[in-house]
């Protein structure tokens, strides 16, 4: 069983992503609604994959990604965000991500990105 942490301020989006992950199967899904919670959950779970939103109410998804990359771990991170700005994407790529999915995404795109890294 792989562990996935879904980080998004929207409970609705977390629910959608959880449903899609559970359809893929073989995963245990955990959730975080803000950046602070995300970092804490990451440290507690050391998940296989983090699906990470960029715009969060406290610290940005980019800051969460930086915090994750400060720790030695094999955790894969896929950004799942409506922000497709190249400047931001490049910075995230430099920090180390396995994918960048722009909302609204289609199911096949999400499935492919997730199955590639898990």
């Amino acid at each position: 069983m792989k562990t996935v942490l879904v980080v998004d301020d929207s409970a609705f989006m977390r629910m959608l992503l959880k449903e899609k992950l559970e359809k893929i199967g073989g995963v245990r899904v955990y959730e975080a609604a803000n950046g602070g919670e995300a970092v804490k959950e990451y440290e507690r779970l050391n998940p296989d994959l983090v699906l990470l939103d960029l715009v969060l109410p406290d610290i940005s998804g980019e800051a969460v990604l930086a915090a994750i990359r400060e720790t030695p771990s094999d955790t894969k991170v896929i950004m799942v965000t409506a922000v497709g700005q190249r400047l931001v994407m490049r910075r995230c790529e430099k920090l180390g991500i396995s994918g960048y999915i722009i909302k609204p995404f289609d199911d096949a795109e999400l499935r492919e990105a997730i199955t590639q890294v898990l």
Partner: protein
Amino acid sequence: MTRNMSELQMDALREIASIGAGNASTVLSEATGSEVVLTVSDLELMPVEQIPRFFQALRGMVVTVYASIGGEILGNVMLILPKESAFSLADLLREEKAGTAKRLSMKVQNILRPFSRSVLEYYLDAITKFSNIEAHLGELRLIATFGETIGDFVRLSIGEKPERIILLKTELSIAPNVKGEFSLFLPIRSAERLLTQVHDI
């Protein structure tokens, strides 16, 4: 005022606005060569007559680019910029030195109007793609007015006169001195239509 809509439904509407603003921010960023920072979206559900209250915090002169939404949902979408921010944005788009635009001249309007249309189209297109709904922008209007009067303007411009309306706001900023917001207004029936389409909640 929110007793008829669940927390999850309101959250879904906020996410819909965030998806619109996120996609619109990409166009803004590409055109200005700068990062566009967004806040999480706010939602208010209110009777139409209370719309002006939503805009009370906007002080001074603002430039508002506004278009109605038609198709399977009705509503309005706006890009609201304080006057100085609108001028700074025009300078960025024209690659002019900061402070070049000093008034809402035809030249400045001719830059802001088509660009804003493109930005608002991206905003709406992302929402229609997410919800699999057909909707389009109507005629685009650019007005300069005092911030606190926008609410009256919106109230008068809503065609179907619904009893209650959903207002969704996402603030944006572009360093060093552009600040503004996307505002989406949806009659309650259109909001419910969107919610049914994105997920049966």
